């Protein structure tokens, strides 16, 4: 069982990751951090942004947001890609006539999603370190929050794209729907700007978006600003990830082969 799952994870990583995916995973956030970050900083001036009791520069704030954003991007791209391609290119059927079961296939995908989410987030943490090192204060106590936020965020977005991939039939519809939804997830979140002080309806929209929770929790961990509200966000994100994951399992199980 374990061996089969590890084989499937290995297969997912080999089959899903190619040069273009790696370039996209690094280049996209680098543009956000070093171009958008510094460009907007000139607009904002010297104003710093409050995270709990600390104030950070906009580039620091943005980098900590892009870490969560990249976990979302990486996990959703990989999960959607694997299931979409396996369904369309017959590999799901082929794997199931081999020694693998559907349960093993699902667990293999889950592990792949979390791995990709964490690795892509870690990659941005390393790349964006120069912009954060003055303000970041990662402690033993805050590390689990960061990992939890990124892992459960990856599960949420990975599962979400799996649902889209299993339910939508045409690639055109798939592209339009997923691009539209991810535009909302990306920009109606606290990844690029703080949620505090926004007009009421926009604040509600921000907190309807799981990326806000991922970013808020991981940011609280990076700057050691964990509060009671952070713990509430932890619970909400866990519940959302679990719910969407269960729906994803159901749609994968009912997938026709």
């Amino acid at each position, binding site marked *: 069982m374990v061996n089969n799952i590890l084989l499937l994870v290995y297969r997912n990583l080999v089959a899903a990751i190619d040069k273009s995916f790696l370039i996209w995973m690094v280049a996209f956030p680098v543009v956000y951090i070093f171009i958008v970050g510094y460009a907007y900083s000139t607009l904002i001036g010297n104003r710093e942004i409050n995270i709990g009791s600390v104030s950070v520069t906009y580039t620091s704030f943005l980098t900590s947001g892009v870490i969560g954003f990249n976990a979302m991007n990486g996990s959703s791209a990989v999960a959607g890609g694997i299931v979409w391609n396996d369904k369309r290119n*017959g590999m799901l059927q082929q794997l199931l006539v*081999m020694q693998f079961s559907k349960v093993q296939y699902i667990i293999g995908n889950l592990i792949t999603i979390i791995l990709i989410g964490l690795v892509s987030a870690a990659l941005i943490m390393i790349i964006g370190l120069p912009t954060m090192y003055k303000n970041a204060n990662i402690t033993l106590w805050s590390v689990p929050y960061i990992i939890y936020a990124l892992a459960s965020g990856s599960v949420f977005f990975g599962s979400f794209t799996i649902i889209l991939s299993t339910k939508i039939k045409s690639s055109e519809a798939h592209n339009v729907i997923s691009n539209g939804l991810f535009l909302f997830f990306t920009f109606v979140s606290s990844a690029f700007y703080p949620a505090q002080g926004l007009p009421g309806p926009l604040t509600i929209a921000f907190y309807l978006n799981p990326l806000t929770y991922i970013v808020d929790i991981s940011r609280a961990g990076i700057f050691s600003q964990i509060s009671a509200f952070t713990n509430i966000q932890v619970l909400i994100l866990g519940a959302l990830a679990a719910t969407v994951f269960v729906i994803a399992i159901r749609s994968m199980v009912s997938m026709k082969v």
Partner: protein
Amino acid sequence: MCKIQKSENCISVSNLRKRYGKANTYAINDITFDVKYGSVFGFLGPNGAGKTTTVKILTTLLRATSGSIYIFGRQLLKNQSEIKKRVGVVSQNPSFETNLTVEKALDLYGILWGLKDKQLRKEKINKILNTFDLESIKSIKNDELSIGQRRRVQVAREFIHEMDLLFLDEPTVGLDPSARRLLLDYIKSQVKSGLTVFFTTHIMEEAEYLCDQIAIMDKGKIIAFDTPSGLKQKYGKGTKTIELTFNDIPNKLLIDHLKNIVNKRQSRKDPNGTNSFIGFNGVHTITITADNVEEIISEVLQLIYKDGLQLENISIIPPSLEEVFLSVVDKNGYSNGREVGR
């Protein structure tokens, strides 16, 4: 091969039925058959007959509504993980890893089948690339291959692992004649080494060339089952075809006289029979298909002699498997376009 052989039959299927949802009709309706070790079992039938559904059940992709299946002498559903390790499947639909080159995809497939030794894997891959003439495309991504090339890779890939039983669901679709012959010959050689093959196809020449036993399926039932020659004997009913090729174009009067001869025999033997008829191959060749051509031929030759026509060639052709197939399926009331079994 056949390391886990514990019974006489490699596959034993009894009273298998499959109904989709709450449908009234069965896609597979009470089929029973055995497949012997080291043989090729051909599964023929028109579109929607239930062939692919049967393969899907035998490869655990679908659950049967009722019936029992034993593979290698063991109940399939209770021992599926163990059984599946010794079974290869080439599905009707293409399956490939988009981003990988042919060589990398073969390597990954080997790893998935548990070939841990890198050197052994490399040797196997080289052998497969060589056997299936894939050397020239080994560095091309699957996504960039033609349909036929992809199919070749899909079939070849299955031979990377040791197996006792191979399911081939219309494996030659999209293959050119030389690739097709190469595959059939390779399968034959593997069968000689002990491999058992469950083979579905629409191409009768392939079935005749490869299969030791053939089951013809229609409307979810097996309607004929025998060796290829047994089927011809049983269902060909001695029907043969006389092929007459003339130097000149035969005139209408001769054709009318030939029709009279055939009709006379037809009404005398079996008034409702449909086995006797006249056909044309181009303008110089007339074919006469009848139950007992030996009785007709002297009359036909006399007629041609009287007419003074020059015969270029005359041959008597035994029934082909395709004719047997058409005759069996027609009798069963073939309904074209019906898609019960998908």
